[in-house]
């Protein structure tokens, strides 16, 4: 029953974290697992701290919301401050390196997600896909084959190579 992994992706509205959540859930399904994705609606989805939540399990998923997440990704300080208390003790906090590390009982992985998207991939809008690459490289919650297929199935035509590069640069941030 406690096979379930709860992931919260947070940042500011417009950073593509809802799409990232959908892609992550679709990758889990490609791996033959169950997945549920939910998100924040309302004003915060248009700027401010917004979130997308994914639950992955080998069994059927009853309660569809994240209560205490195993993993929190935060791309902005505001989102990190808002959601860090919802992270489990010893949970994994993946932070963009522009954010100051908080004190707390977390395993912190601080990596330059936004900078990598901007400088190495060349487009800041693919930060969500860089973040997915980092998340999966660090946690192995879905297979690399599944996430690559899920990304390519969802991104607009003509941006496949860009997004593939974003995914791989994201992987490389975790050695």
């Amino acid at each position: 029953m406690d096979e379930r992994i709860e992931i919260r992706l947070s940042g500011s509205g417009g950073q593509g974290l809802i799409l990232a959540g959908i892609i992550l859930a679709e990758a889990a399904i490609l791996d033959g697992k169950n997945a549920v994705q939910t998100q924040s609606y309302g004003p915060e989805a248009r700027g401010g701290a917004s979130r997308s939540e994914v639950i992955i399990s080998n069994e059927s998923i009853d309660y569809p919301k994240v209560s205490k997440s195993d993993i929190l990704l935060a791309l902005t300080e505001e989102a990190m401050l808002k959601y860090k208390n919802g992270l489990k003790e010893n949970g994994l906090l993946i932070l963009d390196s522009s954010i100051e590390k908080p004190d707390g009982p977390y395993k912190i992985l601080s990596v330059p997600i936004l900078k990598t998207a901007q400088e190495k991939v060349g487009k800041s809008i693919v930060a969500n896909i860089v973040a997915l690459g980092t998340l999966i490289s660090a946690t192995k919650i879905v297979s690399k084959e599944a996430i690559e297929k899920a990304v390519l199935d969802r991104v607009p035509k003509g941006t496949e190579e860009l997004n593939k590069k974003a995914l791989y640069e994201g992987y490389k941030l975790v050695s």
Partner: protein
Amino acid sequence: MGKRVMLMQGNEACVEGAIAAGMRFYAGYPITPSTEIAELSAEKLPKVGGKFIQMEDEIASMGAVIGASLAGLKAMTATSGPGFSLKQENIGFACLTEVPCVIVNVQRGGPSTGLPTLPAQGDVMQARWGTHGDHPIIVISPSSVREVFDMTIKAFNLSEKYRVPCILLMDEVVAHMREKVELPEELNIEIINRKKPKASLPDYKPYKDYDGDGIPPMAAFGDGTPFHVTGLIHDETGFPSTDPKVTENLLNRLMNKIYNNLDDIIEYETVDTADANTVIVTFGSTARSVLRAVKLLRQEGFKVGMLRLKTIWPFPHKAINELTQTATKNLIVAEMNYGQLIETVKASADGVFKVYGLNKYNGELITPQEVIDKVREVAVNA
């Protein structure tokens, strides 16, 4: 992995189910949290030869749906609390004129415009009694994305079979969440269509109980058998009447066509009720929290179970009655409102069980922990 396994949103599953059931007309006035149903109907209906109309308001949307159904199409609209209020008079018109139609109400926090983006289950009573006068209505409530698909089909089937409006009572959680679904092959989906008059009868009476089942065959406008439709009490010809006998017969037939077929209409699910001391009665997305709580409490040795109502109206009294054959002593009614279904559960329990409410009305889904706490509280007091 088959091609019908995918991640799907509840509102999307509603549209997929509706089209699979034969919906070919949608009229609506988009409102959160049901908007995706209008959006996707607009996209998908033209591809199957159907029509989508965004109307000027909620009232007109309901009127258009009734008109389309009278013209022979399976028709649906979707709304949320404020729009559901506005539609009520026309829903009553559809009840009295026996026009099949499906109304989706994705519940959000109320009253008034309330909490547009947040879940609630506050329209339980409005779904039953929102329109005036004695009337039959069927209300069903899904708990998962797959069930949204299945129940949308069921809503059309029941509506067509019994010539009654059917309300799919969803909530924001089940409407907006995306989850893995495996859709059935279209060939395996049971589709029911309304009864048509046997031949082109020159003396076709649109409200005559030809078959003795209380359900008159329904011609479509355009079939060549025009008939009169009115919101006034009417006789078999469809023309108004104030005759007491005609009035009584009509109302009895409207009620009996539903209440004589409860076993066909009503569905519910029981989990671990056989030896349960306490049973949690619930529906919609709240049932998912209850299910988790039941699993966790069972691990601790609590004798607890769940009764999930898939059909809310007509109320499944049989489900409550069946619990009298078990060890059940306490019922907890878990709902995201101030306490609506609980009154009917209490009436149904008729003093046999102690009935407690677990209510939440702050825009958040009841959590498994809150269910666990309530079960513990009841266990201490019992």
